[in-house]
């Protein structure tokens, strides 16, 4: 086991580790944005039951939900170069960071797709009918009227999912990405103060999550302003 517990080390470790928060946030931002695109596209394929692609999306979501993210990470890390080699593209020298982003984007995409699917269906059909009645076509009615409202409905769940994804990103070091967790592992190897390192990491992750929750709550209030209950006095 490691050396005797020394709480003062935590104060030393936190600045060292926080330096690598940028990498973690980079993974998160890129994978959430990509995941959002994948998720909305997949939800549309599901909601409008586009033949073949709908089945493909069902399979994709079920696979992502049914396998651990750690395994998905390795599958992408080893599998993607192998597949691309068939069409003569060699990406085996690509930075591991990109494999992490791809994996988390795929994972987020699947989770977002299910959230958006529910949210799209939760928008009152009367909204679509009203859109048709003013002469909109299907895509105008979907993108201008239904989707913006479904994003509001989806937001609390999306926010939860993003926070989950932030914590999941701590697995990136397993394929050699130097994020906060990766730096923590090297610190442990160098100092043998495992508990202090993990406590430091816990403090940082927890603080970031609290900050995210605060930001999400503010944003949620903003997009819900048209739902406010202060009914103005008639006349």
């Amino acid at each position, binding site marked *: 086991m490691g050396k005797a517990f020394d709480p003062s080390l935590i104060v030393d470790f936190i600045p060292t580790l926080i330096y690598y928060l940028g990498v973690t946030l980079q993974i998160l931002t890129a994978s959430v944005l990509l995941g959002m695109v994948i998720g909305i596209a997949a939800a549309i394929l599901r909601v409008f039951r586009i033949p073949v692609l709908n089945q493909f999306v069902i399979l994709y979501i079920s696979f992502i939900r049914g396998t651990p993210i750690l395994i998905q990470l390795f599958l992408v890390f080893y599998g993607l170069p192998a597949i691309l080699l068939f069409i003569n593209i060699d990406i085996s020298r690509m930075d591991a960071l990109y494999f992490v982003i791809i994996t988390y984007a795929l994972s987020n995409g699947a989770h977002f797709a299910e959230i958006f699917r529910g949210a799209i269906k939760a928008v009152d059909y009367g909204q679509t009918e009203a859109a048709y009645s*003013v*002469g909109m076509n299907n895509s105008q009615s979907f993108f201008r009227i239904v989707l913006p409202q479904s994003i509001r409905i989806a937001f609390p769940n999306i926010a939860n999912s993003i926070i989950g994804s932030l914590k999941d990103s701590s697995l990136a070091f397993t394929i050699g990405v130097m994020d906060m967790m990766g730096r923590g592992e090297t610190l442990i190897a160098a100092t043998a103060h495992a508990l202090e390192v993990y406590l430091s990491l816990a403090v940082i992750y927890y603080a970031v999550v609290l900050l995210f929750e605060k930001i999400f709550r503010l944003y949620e209030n903003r997009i819900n302003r048209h739902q406010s209950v202060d009914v103005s006095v*008639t006349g």
Partner: protein
Amino acid sequence: MIYLKDIKKSFNQQPVLKGINLKIGKGEVVTILGPSGSGKTTLLRCLNFLEKPEEGIVQVGDIQVKSKKATKREILSLRRQSAMVFQHYNLFAHKTVLENVMEGLIVTKKYKKAEAKRESELLLEKVGLGDKHDHFPSQLSGDQQQRVGIARALALNPEVILFDEPTSALDPELVGEVLSVIKAIAQEGITMVIVTHEMSFAKEISDRVLFMDGGVIVEEGSPLEIFNAPKEDRTRQFLNRISRDFSVSFLEERAN
């Protein structure tokens, strides 16, 4: 103007419209009365293909659509001939009052934003909501929401405005506001088809009244003919059943 030929529609093999033929002229105000389940709302919704008839021809303005082989493009141009005012208002929940009215102008009429804004402000003034531009629908009372709905329909300057029980969801004391706005529009010569349960309103506003029951138009005529001298038994029964409060208010009106 509006021309319906042999419109048939059923839900789960249950016929709701059993071959409706109808002509409505430009500027005419037509109300459709009838017990619930008589198909009156379905008929109205067939006029803009929110319900797709199984058979028959729908024509509004210059656009004629054969139900059986209606293409998306045809349905779209048919819908652009009309505007609809809904029972539950169906205002765009994420848009302000002003944006609700502007939306159709910008998307389907291709107005510039400033132009659409000017036009919409005028219409909101007209329905008495000049001071509510930046409110969201959820911040308005029912009658205010419905007046926005009417402004949204008017903005499109359609060939015909379809009213689907515009006051049925309102508190009784708020009905009057909405009805007076509709009356004012009717006097401008806009073609209107109105499904309603407000008998005295129908009597006052209509050029022609249709009485529907069991998926057919049982009787049609001027308000005077339908309300004072209905020819068909079913019309008489229906009017008797609902006339208790109606006849009182009607006599009051006469007395005044």
